[in-house]
């Protein structure tokens, strides 16, 4: 029942799937430093989290993968006014397993053995939109010399490459670190970060939800995420900060 979010309740965080691991680390670190309860982290696609929040999901803060959904929540009046801010800006990269990087992005994409390229679904994932923009800029979107397969999420776009079904994939730079931490071995030298001018900034916004009112720990957690320590952890995960 509603009594469940009393004062000594842990902070409940809804986070876009691509930021989940970073959030897990932030939460653990927060708890270790402050001695407070570790926040409970629920992840999902941003659009689904949005629907759940509208329907009263018990989340205190929402870390979206884009700016659109937090804005919508603001308009819906579910957000503590003034709490929206950009907590990270994503970096797009391409991953070409099996070879140490050389040459340009364009060369890589036009290599004859690149038959399948995976991206996140532009319809649902901001990174997909960014990938589409890159391909458009390079004139490879309308009639690509390869097949474009779309993952429902960044994770799936990554898996298509990881399983060898795509020779090249557009991923988030943050996934490189994740893959390393997940003992996939380092793939850092198989990855090329894409010039951020080729795509619109991947700003990811967070909001504090109104229902967290009166729960002081929420403010402390958000402060921690915004603190230099928190920002350092986000940067280390492969994100830029708000420009």
């Amino acid at each position, binding site marked *: 029942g509603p009594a469940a979010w009393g004062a000594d309740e842990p902070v409940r965080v809804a986070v876009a799937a691509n930021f989940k691991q970073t959030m897990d680390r932030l939460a653990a670190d927060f708890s270790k430093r402050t001695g407070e309860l570790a926040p409970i982290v629920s992840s999902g696609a941003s659009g689904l989290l949005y629907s759940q929040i509208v329907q009263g999901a018990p989340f205190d803060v929402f870390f979206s993968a884009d700016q659109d959904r937090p804005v919508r929540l603001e308009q819906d009046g579910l957000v503590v006014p003034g709490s929206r801010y950009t907590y990270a800006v994503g970096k797009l990269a391409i991953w070409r397993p099996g070879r140490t990087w050389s040459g340009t992005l364009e060369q890589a994409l036009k290599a004859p053995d690149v038959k399948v390229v995976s991206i996140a679904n532009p319809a649902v994932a901001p990174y997909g939109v960014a990938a589409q923009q890159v391909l458009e800029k390079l004139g490879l979107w309308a009639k690509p010399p390869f097949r474009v397969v779309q993952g429902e999420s960044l994770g799936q776009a990554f898996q298509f490459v990881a399983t060898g079904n795509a020779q090249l994939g557009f991923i988030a730079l943050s996934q490189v670190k994740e*893959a390393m931490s997940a003992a996939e071995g380092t793939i850092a030298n198989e990855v090329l970060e894409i010039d951020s001018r080729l795509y619109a900034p991947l700003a990811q916004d967070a909001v504090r939800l109104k229902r967290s009112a009166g729960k002081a720990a929420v403010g402390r957690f958000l402060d921690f995420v915004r603190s230099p320590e928190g920002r350092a952890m986000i940067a280390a995960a492969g994100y830029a900060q708000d420009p």
Partner: protein
Amino acid sequence: MNAALDLTPLALSLRLAAVTAVILLILGTPLAWWLAQGRSRVRFLVEALVVLPVVLPPTVLGFYLLQLLGANGPLGRLWSLLDVRLVFSFTGLVIGSVIFSLPFVVYPLKGVFEKVPRAQLEAAATLGAGPLDRFFSVAVPASLSGFLAAGVLAFAHTLGEFGVVLMLGGNIPGETQVLSIAIYNHVEQLQYPAAHALSAGLVAFSFVVLAVLHFTHSRTKAAT
């Protein structure tokens, strides 16, 4: 974070699958019996209706259920008067799973119920058994394999279910984060070893449970 060792999602999944299977058997049995043996002319409409939950993608079904049962949904408001939250709780998972696996219980049961020999039901009636008594003393024992099938499908389908549960439950660790979501998360987070371990465990565990169930059932059949 070493989620591979966190057994909460597994326990939650098993509890959810068991509760769902039991509720589905309780709800699905009379429905299937009515479909199989009833005389109403509109049965075919209900037969079609029962299948509809699975033609929608689970996440989308979950989305609509969320609209219906959520804080702003018509049913959600009603229940919140009773201080019961239907979504983002175990209750929500159960409701979603029950709806989503309904056809997999109703159809196999209906199939075997149709084959209960009418002569045996009539014999039971002339021997003094009323409709309910006939159902339990004749139809149920003659349909055990159907119950097993229905239960197994409901249990397994609920174990693997993901979209509805994610939507209605909210992926809250320790509360609504079931095993399927946990595995999904691991895959999504590229934590493959953890995903493999959990998947293998789930598959092996399910296999053993199912094999034991079927083996026991085949023994029972041979014995009676």
